[in-house]
């Protein structure tokens, strides 16, 4: 009898999984059902460009079903809950989908209502987010009218999707207001709960340096507790304040709400705990997780979902054929970081190796790592075509591997770390 594979979520990770698995199994070996609440696949990297008029909402959405190859059952419906003991999924309309293997790929949701005052007075008037299509469009209406004052770009808390996107927004805002001749009347601040512009030191220095060059104020270790839209104030838990005239905020994220309704499936933030190397969940051996839905210490980013899906699809095949899983994923992520003025940086890293300078892909690759270039910007634009035509169909992209390739990266000399010296004061 055919094995039943159910994939929840037809975004980046779920679509790649479905297409890769469909090619690995004949129809009589496995059925593949993919569930999503709608038929709109959003190219999420495009959201950044919408507020600046560089992308249109219509231009970055395509039908989900059109990204799936033949032989995949596409079910449209809201997921009510998963019963991991009974191995079935119940939809809001009562439909039940039984499975032998479940793949959770339902991503992350925005939870603006979790921050006091964020969705109160001022929300979508002088307080916006560009992290969903509606918000990005609304912000696109507000930016042209913003003549003077203080623009604050604030990240409320980690984890967030695409951790560099709010920095990119600040860089593009600087470019946008310079181009419109308003930059001298507009201050820009970047507010983060981190202790630097970015978590990893080499990239934090590079990105922090760019903020400084562009005259963007960096406010660190600011944990937003309250947003006062009417008064134009961000208030931190330790009672610091940042004033704004226009606020662009990245709200806190959680897993999909059905995860919370499914006993034993998720953690306190509704993300599904998983093993990084295999992408098998810690819930049940026949439950796998890819992308933003996973409770893993890696970036919530499209590149991660894509690399995970390649490893995870192989492991679902191994699971169903009774072979041991391969511990193959290393937290590899890469992304173009748009810096404005037609340039971008490229970063490529994993859990062990932070973003470093060098070339990509490989030693002789055309793209400079961690350095601004026109070519990286063109790469970012070209990537959209690659996303729809190569990545989602589950084709391998030459030179791009799921795990990190150190070739081409300049690795800093290790610092000597005396561990057995006599008692010293820590710095």
């Amino acid at each position, binding site marked *: 009898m055919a094995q039943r594979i159910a994939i929840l979520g037809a975004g980046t990770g779920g679509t790649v999984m479905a297409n890769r698995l469909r090619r690995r199994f004949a129809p009589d070996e496995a059925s593949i059902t993919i569930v999503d609440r709608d038929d709109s696949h959003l190219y999420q990297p495009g959201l950044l460009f919408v507020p600046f008029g560089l992308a249109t909402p219509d231009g970055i959405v395509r039908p989900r079903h059109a990204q799936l190859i033949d032989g995949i059952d596409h079910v449209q419906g809201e997921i009510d809950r998963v019963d991991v003991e009974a191995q079935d999924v119940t939809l809001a309309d009562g439909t039940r989908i039984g499975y032998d293997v479940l793949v959770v790929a339902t991503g992350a949701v925005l939870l603006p209502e979790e921050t006091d005052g964020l969705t109160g007075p001022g929300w979508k008037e002088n307080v916006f987010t560009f992290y969903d299509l509606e918000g990005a469009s609304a912000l696109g209406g507000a930016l042209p009218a913003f003549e003077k004052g203080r623009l604050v770009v604030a990240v409320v*808390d980690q984890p967030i999707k695409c951790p560099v996107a709010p920095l990119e927004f600040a860089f593009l805002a600087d470019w946008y207001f310079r181009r419109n001749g308003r930059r001298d009347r507009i201050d820009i601040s970047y507010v983060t709960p981190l202790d630097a512009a970015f978590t*990893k030191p080499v990239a934090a220095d590079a990105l922090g340096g760019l903020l400084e060059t562009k005259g963007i104020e960096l406010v660190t*270790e600011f944990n937003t*507790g309250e947003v006062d839209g009417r008064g134009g104030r961000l208030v931190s*838990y330790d009672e610091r304040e940042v004033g704004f005239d226009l606020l662009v905020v990245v709200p806190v994220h959680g897993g999909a709400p059905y995860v919370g309704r499914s006993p034993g499936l998720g953690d306190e933030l509704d993300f599904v*705990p998983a093993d990084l190397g295999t992408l098998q969940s810690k819930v049940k051996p026949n439950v796998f997780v890819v992308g933003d839905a996973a409770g893993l210490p890696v970036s919530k980013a499209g590149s991660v979902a894509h690399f995970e899906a390649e490893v995870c699809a192989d492991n679902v095949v191994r699971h169903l054929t009774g072979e041991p899983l391969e511990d193959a994923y290393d937290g590899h992520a890469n992304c173009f970081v748009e810096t404005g003025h037609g340039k971008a940086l490229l970063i490529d890293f994993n859990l062990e190796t932070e973003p470093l300078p060098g070339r990509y892909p490989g030693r002789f690759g055309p793209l400079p790592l961690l350095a601004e270039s026109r070519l990286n910007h063109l790469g970012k634009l070209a990537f959209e075509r690659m996303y729809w035509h190569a990545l989602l169909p589950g084709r391998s992209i030459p030179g791009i591997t799921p795990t990190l390739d150190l070739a081409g990266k300049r690795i800093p000399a290790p610092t000597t770390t005396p561990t057995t010296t006599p008692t010293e004061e*820590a710095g």
Partner: protein
Amino acid sequence: MTTQTIAGRDVTVDEEGFLADPAQWDDEVATAIARDAGIDPMTDRHWQVVRYMRDTYLSTGSAPTIRSLGKASGVPVKELYQLFPKGPAKLAARIAGIPKPRGCI
């Protein structure tokens, strides 16, 4: 990394005073680190957070964020800031003898 004597024990700490090896930790080390950071005495509520933090780290390999702490430790975020002024996640991690929490990237 340097070796420091905390509560009479030689422990290895990083540049910011976080223990390199969670196994070198005990309640007395925690109390001494807390006192040094201006938290004296460690109340039951402090211990509740510190123990939750440490258990989570030891079982999952990563320290919870402030938001996770607020949802799962039984101590709301506002109170976390009263108990561990400035940066509760960092300070509680230091007292709990686990590495400095990093963001997710």
